[in-house]
């Protein structure tokens, strides 16, 4: 079984998981994900690949501890094993030399945006990185991202980074200030949909990395179906990247919340069992 090399809390509730997975490390590309199951009773969930080391044969993901699965993952220690760490799944993001690229990430997406920004930079683009945090102490990987970015912008709601506005305002400001040729957004559904709405008037191509509920992650079940430009797509094999201006966001919100009550029940049952 795949062995955990490192698991650490980056900021409250956000954790890094580095796993020994030489085959995945050899193959993975920006925008792809892995399917992870924390234990034999667990659920299969997709996690975006945030980094990899092809020589050491490790793959890194960053996730937020919210439900049972992610809380189980957050308790892993180096040397533990996970029964499932499968991938790399999904189509890699389209990376090209387009000019100026705005890479926006929030929450776990601050890490997930990292390989995209790195690839766009390597392809010769000017890269602006915009990260969204609820408060200053929730910012992580600043050094890693600043090393890549031509410009690094933090959107925070507590004012420490010079503003109390939400991320769409920053996006609009950047678009008003300079010509942007591509926007990529990774994070919660709210972050991605609000960025897509902010860029819709300008028509700048805005790619979003969707994270619907998945089971197998290989196209077998269709749990992850999303409507894009009126067509049903499977995020796991047709995506996860789609044109944010064509996504049916209302449907995605509803499908993301499919099991809200069950998720709470599952978490309560697990907490009772583990912390009686």
């Amino acid at each position: 079984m795949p062995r955990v090399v490192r698991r650490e809390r980056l900021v409250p509730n956000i954790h890094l998981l580095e796993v020994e997975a030489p085959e995945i490390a050899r193959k993975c590309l920006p925008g792809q994900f892995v399917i992870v199951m924390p234990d034999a009773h667990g659920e299969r969930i997709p996690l975006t690949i945030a980094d990899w080391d092809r020589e050491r044969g490790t793959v890194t993901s960053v996730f937020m501890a919210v439900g049972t699965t992610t809380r189980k993952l957050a308790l892993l220690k180096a040397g533990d094993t996970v029964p499932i760490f499968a991938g790399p799944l999904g189509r890699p993001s389209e990376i090209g030399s387009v000019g100026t690229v705005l890479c926006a990430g929030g929450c776990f997406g601050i890490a997930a945006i990292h390989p995209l920004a790195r690839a766009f930079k390597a392809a010769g683009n000017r890269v602006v990185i915009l990260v969204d945090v609820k408060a200053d102490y929730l910012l992580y990987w600043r050094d890693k991202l600043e090393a890549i970015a031509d410009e690094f912008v933090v959107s925070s709601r507590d004012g420490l980074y010079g503003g109390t506005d939400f991320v769409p305002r920053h996006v609009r400001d950047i678009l008003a200030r300079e010509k942007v040729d591509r926007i990529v957004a990774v994070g919660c559904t709210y972050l991605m949909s609000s960025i897509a709405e902010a860029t819709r008037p300008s028509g700048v191509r805005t790619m979003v990395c969707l994270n619907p509920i998945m089971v197998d992650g290989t196209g077998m079940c269709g749990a992850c179906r999303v409507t894009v430009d009126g067509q049903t797509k499977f995020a796991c094999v047709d995506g996860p990247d789609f044109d944010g201006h064509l996504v049916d966001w209302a449907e995605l919100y509803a499908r993301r919340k499919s099991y809200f009550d069950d998720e709470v029940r599952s978490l309560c049952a697990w907490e009772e069992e583990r912390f009686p």
Partner: protein
Amino acid sequence: MSDQDTISPSLAAQVLAEFEKDWRKELRRSMPVKERMKGGRRPMPQRAPGERNKDFAEVNLGLGAEEAVAEARRCLDCAKPGCIAGCPVRIDIPSFVKLVEKGEFAAAAAKVREANSLPAVCGRVCPQESQCEEKCALRKATGVAVGIGNLERFVSDYERREGGAVVSDLPPSTGRKVAVVGAGPSGMTVAGELARAGHRVTIFEALHDAGGVLVYGIPEFRLPKSILVAEISYLRRLGVEFRMNFIVGKTATIDDLRADGYEVFFIGSGAGLPNFMKVPGENLVGVYSANEYLTRVNLMRAYDFPRYDTPVFPGRRAAVIGGGNVAIDSVRTAKRLGAERALIIYRRSRVEMPARVEEVHHAEEEGIEFHFLTVPTRYIGDEHGRVKAMECLRMELGEPDASGRRRPVPVPGSEFTAEVDLVVVAIGQSPNPLIPQTTPGLKVGKWGTIDVDWETMATSLPGVYAGGDIARGGATVILAMGDARTAAAAMDRRLKQGSAG
């Protein structure tokens, strides 16, 4: 595709040699044909419908030894048996049945295993009524065939209770590396055959449990997981290596595996891409593909939520769209998860249903409602995007279509609305495109199936074979296993020729 009506001359000669053995002659003489034809089939003991439709324990309990022997006595031991040609893997059925009659259950099980590496599975899930039992002389004479499937199940269950299939006389290892893609019925069969021929076989499986459709699709109440575990343990004892959570095409391509020293390949990746009807509202919360619904319940064990973390909607009024085995499995699952009403919505009539007769019968006993000649045209959601009703249209049967079945045509003005809170779409699957997409040069047919030479199951790429649903586009476990036997023989020949040259 192998010819359904004839068996090869070499097999016919073997069958005849068995037929002419002294013990068989004696057994035939021991009871007159008239006596054998008296009385009907020994019924399969099963749990009461009102009890079994509330849990996931197996419905059928299996014949006892006495009943099995009595059932085996019904077999007339024909000089020219039709049943063997009716079996896609060509089990020497009379020989194993007569061993049961003689009380030699272990030998009977070994006889079945010569041709079938998953007998406990096939004894439970094969559509015998349209295969071996359809060709049975007793059926032609009396209307009721020998219960061949029930006997196959009996001998394999006996074998498992006695400690499992014996691994003996493995040839020395050839050291030749074989890669099998997918641990489903065809992949497991190829692996078993080639391991027994002395090759080094690795099965690459995308999911975390082996079995393919047998583990994610077919429910516990029809095929208990413990049976699959025993079959997998047999393969491991034969030396087959399993690489789980390995997605060929993603984790490594066929070309990568070739570079790692694998010489021949079998692709048995199945029909893992669910079809939808493309009607409005199909993406509402509460509308599932059968693959997702069954995978949640079977593979992820959602029936035991929250002990297992994966949830599934219980559904109060469940509608399952389709008329095949997958639809019947889904609707019986919904009933077991507590649905007050569980409906089958099928666009044709009862006689056209492709599901196994026994399953339809069991479903009716369990309180499943069948609505024939009906199609959904639209799903209606509530304010949370959750399905609350479906709009349907009545059909009538018109002229026969390409499948020979009468084509359903809509009855104008017959729309009606039904209240539902769970919908499972079970209208079929398409071949999984992952491997064709990532394997340059692999020829694919119109429906996404991999093109094969049906005599050998060879694909357009040298050393690469395919079978089961990825080549057929959606068939049965046993047809997949028949493909696998054909492929394994060709792969073995190729490896042996290779080593000679």
